[in-house]
């Protein structure tokens, strides 16, 4: 085997470049490790972890029941009885804050998973299928893309009413074409690599190639997408509750709390301020994670000469 004459720099000698077309099954592990080196990822994980912890533990440490009337409406804070005062009908604000994170986080996670499963399936199929299947699915996805996500959700809420499953499903469906584009691009690239061509030459069924060969190789960009879509899911789910089409009273939910207590913002701002800040901090946390992952992915692709 003759080696082509290339001047190799020192850094390349220390870390041998990964062979192009190699399967790289642990690329996503490399990406996670690389992302974890960045401070922004650590801050993001810290924020996300803290708020999830608050939402999980909250109901156990809450001083009252979320639907218990503890004071006149819009009472100001009064330590140690009412740390954050009372809301528009006299519930304890601190209690409702401690209870109200679960729904946002769970519904947003569910919507993101639905979007990911749908989007990845469609992306794999369109990226690997013959032309007309690809073309027609992409046209249908263009229609979903023609609606801003919040408008798509509102259109379906107007037909079927404000149902939670519907909102989660539509937010997920709204993500699907966006995730599908990423998955399709990655699939197109991977499907030209040697190990896929080899599998095809062996006559392995195409769906097996899709799931056993291609899917494991496109995990990294999908992880980045997951972080990004989770951020948008939290915003959308909270916004729909804020508009009155998500969680319904008397549920304790951050988005709903903002809407219910808006009228009292001048005399008793806490039931608005605290949920607003928590939602804001949560989305900043998930976005920092997504950004760290994205940067790590770009770094790895640059180093390995792929992408």
């Amino acid at each position, binding site marked *: 085997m003759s080696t082509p004459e290339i001047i190799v720099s020192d850094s390349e000698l220390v870390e041998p470049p990964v062979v192009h077309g190699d399967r790289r099954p642990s690329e996503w592990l490399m990406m996670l490790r690389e992302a974890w080196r960045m401070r*922004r990822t650590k801050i993001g994980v810290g924020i996300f972890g803290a708020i999830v912890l608050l939402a999980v533990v909250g109901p156990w440490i809450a001083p009252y029941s979320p639907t218990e009337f503890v004071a006149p409406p819009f009472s100001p804070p009064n330590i140690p009885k009412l740390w954050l005062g009372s809301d528009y009908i006299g519930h304890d604000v601190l209690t409702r804050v401690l209870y109200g994170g679960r729904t946002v986080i769970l519904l947003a996670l569910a919507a993101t998973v639905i979007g990911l499963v749908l989007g990845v399936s469609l992306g794999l199929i369109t990226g690997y299928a013959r032309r007309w299947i690809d073309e027609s699915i992409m*046209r*249908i996805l*263009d*229609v979903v893309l*023609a*609606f*801003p*996500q*919040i*408008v798509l959700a*509102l*259109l*379906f*809420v*107007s*037909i*079927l*009413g404000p149902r939670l499953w519907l909102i989660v499903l539509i937010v997920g469906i709204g993500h699907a074409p966006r995730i599908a584009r990423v998955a399709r691009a990655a699939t197109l690239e991977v499907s030209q690599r040697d190990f896929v061509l080899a599998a095809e030459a062996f006559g392995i069924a195409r769906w097996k190639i899709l799931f056993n060969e291609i899917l494991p190789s496109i995990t990294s960009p999908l992880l980045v997408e997951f972080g990004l879509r989770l*951020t948008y899911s*939290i*915003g*959308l789910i*909270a*916004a729909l509750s*804020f*508009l*009155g*089409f998500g969680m319904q009273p008397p549920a304790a939910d951050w988005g709903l709390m*903002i809407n219910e207590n808006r009228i009292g*913002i*001048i005399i008793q*701002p806490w039931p*608005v*301020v605290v949920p*607003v800040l928590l*939602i*804001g901090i949560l*989305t*900043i946390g*998930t*976005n*920092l994670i997504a*950004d760290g992952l994205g940067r790590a992915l770009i770094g790895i692709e640059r180093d390995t000469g792929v992408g």
Partner: protein
Amino acid sequence: MPPLLKLIMIRIGLGLLTLFLVSVVVFAATQALPGDTARAILGRDAVNTARYEALREQLGLNRPITSQYVGWLGNVLSGNLGNSLVQDKPVTELLSRRVANTFILVFVAALLSVPISLFLGSLTALRRDSKFDISVSIGSLSLAALPEFVIGIILILLFATQVFHWLPAVSNVNPDVPIYQQLDLFILPAITLTLAVAPYITRILRASTIEVLESEYVMMARLKGLPERLVLNRHAVPNALAPALQVTALNLAWLAGGVVVVEYLFAFPGIGSALVDAVANRDMPMVQAICLIIAAVYVIANLTADILTILVSPRLRTGLR
């Protein structure tokens, strides 16, 4: 046909196809309702009465669904969007002033966010990895994460209620007073939209400017020994122009959806808050009309972005990719 024209015609064709499919989805939305429009107008008890049957006949509900769709589309294209179920007036009459209000709001927001994003995007790209770049990057990353209503409420707390009392928290635009006398009502909603969209656009612009600066033709121009000013003006800017135009169009596309929550938050009388009201009242003709308007703006803005990109970027214009 020259390849460039062909490329543009294909884009326009796909855009029209998308718009057509959008209209099908919006039309199908009403068909999925339990009961029909006649029942929605007369109430549930009227079902199977003579009046109900007469109204069904009048509304054309006994015709096959495809013929109903064609009739509906014809009406929409000639500007007849039906009557609001809640207010019993033509949708076009109810929406015209709101469309104008939203248009002004979006215009003001675009006027603020396009120059800001252009400035920050190109400057951070030119001074890559400087302190300025890093602080803009962290700021825009955080702002881009925040839902619009979170930004809006923080602004209300800061400038309208708790900290300062400079601006109105509610934008109840009075239809009988000229707009220029109530511009203060547009400030907070417009700033909210700007803060929500500008970070996103800034990031796109920074990335595309960096791509241009690192491209082979800019490197080639530098290797030829051209002065940096010429490199930027003759080689970098024409290629960075595409993203700039694209940014403006994407801005519009994003704002078309962003207005919904922001208008509701500020009780601003535009099509976004009208959509929220219509959904709450299940006023389907109104929902259909607004969804069609927003989707059309969204599709046309994206289409314009695509075509402008093809027209101004020298690489695509010459057919080289």
